[in-house]
C-alpha cells in the first residue's frame, strides 16, 4: 500500500513536472461539469475565465450534469469512454465515486497549491478533505429562509430550528427536501434528543420512527422539494412561510431579488462541494485537469468565488481575502454560512453515517411519505 502510494505520488509528480516543463503534453480542451445556474456562473468567473486567459489556446466547455454525476460517470466508465475532465460534486458523491474507483486519488500536498504563507494544502483544507479523491472548494449550508411579512404580529421572528415544527406560533406551510438527510436530524433535535446523540438515536429503528413521528406532526403542512430552486420560488410566491434550501439561493432571493425573506441560521447543516478528476483519463487530459484544479483551488481563486455567490471558501487562508460582491458591492463576509455570527449552532453532514444508512432510511422515509 505504502509502496503503491509513493509510486503513485512519484508518477503523478513526474507527470506534473514533465507537463510543466514541456507544456505541450496537456490536452488543450476540457469539459467541466457543474450544477448550472448562479453557482456555475461564479465558477466560470472566478476560475475558468482567468485560467483560459492565462493559458492561450485552452478551451473549456461546461456540462450541467452534477446532479447525476455518479450515475453518468459509472455509465461512462462501463462504456470505457469518459468524456468529462473535471467534475464538481458534493462531498457525499465524491466519497461514493472514490469508493467505486471512478475518481482519481489525489495527493493533496503534491498536487495542489500551498497557501501564500507556505502552509501545505492538506493543512489549509484541514478536515474538509473527506476523501482521498475530493478537492474541497466551498462550504455551503442547508438552512431555512422565512417570509418576514408572514410572521404573525406580536411574535418574534423565528430564530431557532424548532420553530419549523411549531405550527401554532408560526402558522403556514413549510418546504422540506424530499429525502431523509437533514430532516431526520432536525426532527430529533426538536424532539428532545441532544445534539451529540442524534446519530446514535438515528441508528435504531425506534429512533427512525421517532424522527418520522415528529415530522408527522407537520406532514400536512409540508411541500416536499427536490430541486434547489423550489424553495426560493415558493418563498418568493408567498406559497410557504418557511423552507429549507441552500444558503446561496436564499442570498439571491434576499439581496438580488429583494424579496421580504430572511435567513434563520440555527442548526444549519454544513456540506462541502468540490472537484474530482475522473479515473481513466488519458495522460494529457489528466495533466490538464490537475493543472486546472490546482489553479482553481488556490487561496486567491477560492476567495474570488465569494464575490459572486455567498458560499464559504474551503481554505482557511482564503477567509481573510473574501471581499465585496462583484455587482451589488455589499460585504460578503456576513453572508457566509461560516461567519461566526451565523455559525453559532451548526451541524456537519455526517458522511460516514449516511453512506451506511442512506438506502435503509430512505426506503422508510419514502414509504412514509407515500402513505
Amino acid at each position, binding site marked *: *500500500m*505504502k*509502496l*503503491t502510494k509513493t509510486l503513485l505520488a512519484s508518477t503523478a509528480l513526474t507527470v506534473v513536472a514533465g507537463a510543466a516543463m514541456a507544456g505541450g503534453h496537456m490536452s488543450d480542451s476540457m469539459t467541466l461539469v457543474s450544477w448550472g445556474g448562479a453557482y456555475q456562473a461564479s465558477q466560470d468567473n472566478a476560475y475558468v475565465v482567468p485560467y483560459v486567459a492565462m493559458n492561450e489556446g485552452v478551451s473549456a466547455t461546461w456540462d450541467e450534469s452534477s*446532479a*447525476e454525476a*455518479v*450515475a453518468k460517470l*459509472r455509465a461512462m466508465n462501463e462504456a470505457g469512454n469518459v468524456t468529462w475532465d473535471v467534475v464538481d460534486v458534493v462531498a457525499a458523491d465524491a466519497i*461514493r465515486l*472514490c*469508493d*467505486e*474507483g471512478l475518481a482519481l486519488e489525489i495527493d493533496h500536498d503534491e498536487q495542489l497549491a500551498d497557501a501564500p504563507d507556505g502552509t501545505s494544502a492538506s493543512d489549509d483544507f484541514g478536515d474538509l478533505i473527506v476523501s482521498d479523491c475530493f478537492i474541497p472548494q466551498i462550504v455551503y449550508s442547508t438552512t431555512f429562509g422565512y417570509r418576514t411579512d408572514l410572521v404573525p404580529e406580536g411574535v418574534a421572528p423565528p430564530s431557532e430550528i424548532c420553530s419549523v415544527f411549531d405550527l401554532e406560533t408560526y402558522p403556514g*406551510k413549510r418546504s422540506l427536501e*424530499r429525502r431523509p438527510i437533514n430532516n431526520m436530524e432536525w426532527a430529533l433535535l426538536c424532539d428532545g434528543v441532544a445534539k451529540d446523540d442524534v446519530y446514535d438515536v438515528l441508528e435504531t429503528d425506534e429512533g427512525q*420512527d421517532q424522527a418520522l413521528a415528529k415530522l408527522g406532526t407537520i406532514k400536512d403542512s409540508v*411541500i*416536499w422539494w*427536490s430541486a434547489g430552486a423550489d424553495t426560493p*420560488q*415558493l418563498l418568493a*410566491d*408567498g*406559497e410557504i412561510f418557511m423552507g429549507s434550501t441552500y444558503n446561496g439561493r436564499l442570498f439571491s432571493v434576499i439581496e438580488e431579488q429583494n424579496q421580504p425573506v430572511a435567513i434563520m441560521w440555527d442548526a444549519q447543516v454544513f456540506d462541502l462541494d468540490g472537484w474530482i478528476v475522473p479515473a481513466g483519463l488519458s495522460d494529457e487530459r489528466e495533466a490538464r485537469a490537475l493543472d486546472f484544479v490546482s489553479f482553481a483551488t488556490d487561496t486567491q481563486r477560492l476567495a474570488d468565488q465569494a464575490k459572486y455567490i455567498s458560499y464559504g471558501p474551503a481554505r482557511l487562508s482564503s477567509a481573510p481575502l473574501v471581499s465585496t460582491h462583484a455587482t451589488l458591492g455589499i460585504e460578503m463576509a456576513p453572508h457566509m454560512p461560516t461567519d461566526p455570527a451565523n455559525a453559532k449552532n451548526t451541524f456537519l453532514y455526517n458522511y*460516514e453515517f449516511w*453512506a*451506511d*444508512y*442512506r*438506502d*435503509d432510511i*430512505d*426506503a*422508510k422515509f*419514502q*414509504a*412514509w*411519505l*407515500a*402513505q
Partner: protein
Amino acid sequence: MTDKSSGPMLAADGTPLKRSLSRALRMQKVRALLLIAPLLLFVVLTFLAPIADMLFRSVENQIVSETLPKATLELADWDGDGLPSDAVYEATFFDLFAAAERKLHTRLGTRLNYEETGMSSLFRRTGRKLDDFGDVYLDQFKKVDRAWSKAAPWAEMMSDPDWLAGQEALGRGDAGPPFVLRAGMETLLPRTSDAYQTFARAMQEEDDNPADEKPWATVHIALAEDLATQDVSTYTGPGKDRLQATAALVGSADFETLDYTAMFLDINDNWGDTDVWRTIKLYSPAYTSGYFLNAVDMQLTPDGPEWRDEREQIYGLLFKRTLYMSLVITLSCIMLGYPVAWLLANLPTRQSNLLMILVLLPFWTSLLVRTSAWKVMLQQQGVVNDVLVWLSIVPDDARLALINNQTGTIIAMTHILLPFMILPMYSVMQTIPPTYLRAAKSLGATNWTAFWRVYFPQSVPGIGAGSILVFILAIGYYITPAIVGGTSGTFISNRIAYHISSSGNWGLGAALGALLLAAVLILYWAYDRIVGIDNVKLGG
C-alpha cells in the same frame, strides 16, 4: 386436369414454375431485408441491446463471487449458525486484501449495503486496516533474511526463468506477457503460488511489471502456511538457503502466527455479526432474485422470500397508483380530446387549421416550461385560486390544494398528453363520410341516435389508438409527476429514476423497470383480447 398428367408446370427456362417463383420471391425478400438492414441494425444496437443489458442487471450479481472468490466457496459449507470457521475468515482475508489493493472492496461494500445497512463502511474501514495486520510474518521473515522484503528475490524464486528474462528488457509502464510460474512451484508451495499469481495478475492489470514490485502481505502469509506443512528440502532453485532457513523458523516454537477470526473482530466488531456473513452467503450466487423481490416489497432471507416490514413497503402502492392514475389521465384525455377532434374533422378548413395549430402549439413548447407553468397556475397563491377567491367561490383562508398532489399530476399530465389523444382520433374521424350522419337523420334518427349508433362506432379505432398511446406514455412519465406530484402524485418511474441516477442501485431500478415493462405488455395483450388490435387505427 391435363396439368396432372404432364407433371409440374415449367417456366421458360425449364425449371419448375414453383421453384422459380419462390426463388424470385426470396430474392425480393433479401433485397427488402437489405434495405431495412441499416435501420434494423441501428435499432438493435442502440435501442434493444442497451435495454436488454440494463434489464439483465436486475438478476446479475457476479460482483460478490468475483470479489470474494475464495470466501464464497468456503461459506458454502457454513450452516448459517454461529460464526463461520477460521477458514472462512482466512479466505476472506486473502480475497479482501487483493480486492483492497485493486480498490474493488468498496464497490462490493456499496452493493451489499443495499441489502444490509452498514456494509459500506465495514468494507471501507476493513480495507484500510488490513495492511496493518499482514506485516506480522514479513517482520519475522526479515530476521532470517532481509531479501524477503524486496521484489527481485521473490520474482526469481516464483517465476519461470524465461519469463523473468523477458521482463528485464521491458521499459517502465510495460507489463509484459502474462506471468508464468516456475515449474514445480505449484506442488512445492501451493498457497504461495496461488497468492503470488493473484498478485502478479493484479500488477499486470495496472500495467506494472510484477518482477519490479514487492509482493503483497498475502504472499508472505501464504508462504508461512506452506512452510508449516510442506517439505521444501528438495527445492534447489534460487534462494534455496533462504527458504530452508525460513522453514526452520516457521517450524520453531516462537514463530508468531495470525488468528484470522481474532484479526477480523479486532478490525471491526461487525465481522462477528452473523447477519453480515448471512448476507454475503445469501448473495454469493452469480444470479439473484433479490432485486425482483425488493421490487415487490419482499426480501430474500436464508429461509426464503419474506414480506418486508410494513413501514418499508412502497413499490406495490406505487405500481397500483401508477396504473390507476394513468387510467384516469387516459379517460380525461378521451373526454377532453373527443370534442376537439370532432371539431377538427368537421369545421371548415380555415377554422380547423387554426384549431390544429392551437392543439399543436403546446407540443412545440418545452415540457419543463409547460409543467412549470402549471405550478404558477395551480399553486395556492396562483392564478386559478386567485380568480376563485376574487369571485368569492372559495374563501381566502381555504384555498384549494390543486398542486403537489394527485390532482396536480392528473391536470398537468392530461394537458401534456392531450395531443397524443387528439391526433389519432382526428385522423380516424376525417375518414368518416359526413353523408352517413345525414343518411341516418333522413331515416328518422335523432341527433343523439345518429351520433351514438352511426358516428361513434366508426370513431372507436381512433379512441383505441389514442388510449394506447396516452396510457403507455403516462405509465412511464416521471418529470411531470416529480415536479407537480408532491407525495401522493408520484409514479413508480420516479423511484426508478431515483435508483438509476441517485441511489446507484441499478439492479433494483432495472427490476422495477422490467416489472413495468411486463405490466404494459400484459395490458396490451388484454387490450388485444378484449378490443382487438385490428380495431386500432392511426389514420385512414
